[in-house]
C-alpha cells in the first residue's frame, strides 16, 4: 500500500461516515499496519488541502470529520427547511461552563458556585450527553462526579479542552489583592480521584 492510496482510503472513509472518526478507528481499517504518526500526517495534509476548498475537514476532540463551512449554512437551512436551531438556556450554559473547567465536580459543588439548585439543569445536560458521570467522589455520601463529554467538544466546535476560553477576567482582577487563581482547563486524565479538589464551602 502506498501513501497516496492510504490517503485516498482515509478521505473516502471520512466522507462516508456520518460520524466523526478517531485516528484509531481509521487505523483499524489498515489492520494497524500503518503507524499512528503516518495517519496523523495524512490527516494533517488533508486538513491543509481542504483549506482551499468549499468543504472543510475538522478535528474535534481527537476525531475527524468532513463538514460544511459556516458561510453556507443559510442555503443548507433553506434546502432542508431547517428551522433555527434551539440553543442552550443560560442556566445550562453556566452549569456546563462550570463542569467543563472544574471537572470532575459534584452537583453540590456546582450549586456552591452557581448559588442555586442545579439538579434539573444537570439532568438536561446528561440527557443531551453534554456531560457524563465520571465516577463517585470519595467523601461521605459518595456523590456522583461529572465531566464533559466528547459531544460537548463537538457542540462547541472545540478541538480539545485546552481550546476552552481562558477564565481570566481583567476587570475583576485586583492587582494588589491576593493572586486569584485562574482556573485552567483540564486536559489530562480527569478520571483519577487525585485530581479532585476540595471546594471550600462558605459558611
Amino acid at each position, binding site marked *: 500500500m502506498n501513501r497516496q492510496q492510504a490517503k485516498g482510503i482515509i478521505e473516502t472513509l471520512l466522507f462516508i461516515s456520518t460520524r466523526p472518526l478517531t485516528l484509531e478507528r481509521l487505523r483499524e481499517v489498515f489492520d494497524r499496519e500503518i503507524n499512528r504518526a503516518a495517519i496523523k500526517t495524512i490527516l494533517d495534509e488533508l486538513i491543509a488541502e481542504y483549506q482551499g476548498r468549499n468543504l472543510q475537514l475538522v478535528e474535534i476532540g481527537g476525531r475527524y470529520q468532513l463538514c460544511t463551512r459556516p458561510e453556507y449554512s443559510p442555503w*443548507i437551512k433553506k434546502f432542508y427547511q431547517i428551522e433555527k436551531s434551539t440553543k442552550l438556556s443560560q442556566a445550562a*450554559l453556566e452549569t456546563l461552563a462550570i463542569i467543563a473547567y472544574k471537572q470532575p465536580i459534584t452537583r453540590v459543588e456546582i450549586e456552591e*458556585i452557581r448559588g442555586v*439548585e442545579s439538579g434539573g439543569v444537570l439532568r438536561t445536560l446528561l440527557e443531551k450527553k453534554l456531560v457524563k458521570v465520571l465516577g463517585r467522589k470519595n467523601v461521605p455520601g459518595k456523590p456522583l462526579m461529572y465531566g464533559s463529554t466528547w459531544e460537548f467538544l463537538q457542540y*462547541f*466546535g472545540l478541538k480539545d479542552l485546552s481550546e476552552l476560553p481562558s477564565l481570566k477576567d481583567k476587570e475583576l482582577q*485586583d492587582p494588589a489583592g491576593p493572586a486569584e487563581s485562574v482556573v485552567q482547563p483540564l486536559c489530562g486524565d480527569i478520571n483519577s480521584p487525585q485530581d479532585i479538589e476540595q471546594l471550600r464551602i462558605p*459558611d
Partner: protein
Amino acid sequence: MSPSSTPFTIKLQVFEGPLDLLLHLIKQNQVDIYDIPIALITEQYVEYLELMTQLNLDFASEFLVMAATLIEIKSRMLLPVIPDPEGQINQQTDDPREELVQRLLEYQKFKEAALALRKHEGHQAEVFTRIEDDSTESEKDLFLDVSMFDLLEAFRRLLQEKAPEQIREITRDEILLIDKLSYILEQLEKRGGKLSFLSLTEGMNHKLELIVTFLALLELVHHRLIKLRQSRPFGQIWIWKDESAASQGHN
C-alpha cells in the same frame, strides 16, 4: 397569571440566581466589587425580592437565603473589629464581606465563560455534516452508541411516566412477551403503520406490563419489524412499521 407582558417582568426573570442578581446590582451601581457598599446593595436586593413577590413571580428559595446573608453581613459590619487572642487584626479574614466577594468573583468567572461558549455555540450551529441516509437508519437503530446511563435513563423514564396506580399480585404468565409483540403489531396495523409510544402504553399501569412492552418493542426493532423514531431529544417516540424489512422477508 403574572403580568408577564411588562418589560420589567422580563428583566427580572433573567437572573439565574442570587449571585447573578448581586452582580447586576454591583454593575448597575458602578461600585467596587472588593468594597461593596453592603447597606445600599442589601437595600436594593431586598427591593427586588419584594417586587418579585408583588408581581407574583416565583423565585428560588436561594434568593431568600442570600437576603438573610446580606442582612447578616450588614449587621456584622456595624460591630467594632475585635482583635483575635494574639491581638492581631486581620483585615482579610475579618471583613464580613470577604466570603461573599470570593463567591461573586468565582461565579463571575463562569458567567463570562458561558458567554464565550455562547459564541462558540453560534458558530458551530452553522456547520453541517452529511445527512444520514434513511436506508441505513434501521441499521443505526440496531447498533446504538450508548452508555450505561442511556439504558437506565430509558428505563427510569418509562417507569416514572407511568406511576403505578395500584400494586397487585400478578402471575408471571399473565403478561407474556409474545402477547405484547402481537398487540403492538395489531395496534400498528389499526393506526396505519404509525403509533406514538405514549398512546401504545395508554392504560398500562403496572410496571411489569410496561417493562414487557418496552422489551417487546426492542425485540421488534431487532427483528426489523418496526422502527423507532424520535425527531429530537426528549421528543415523542414514534413507532413505525418497518416496510423495508417486511419486503425483504426478514425474519
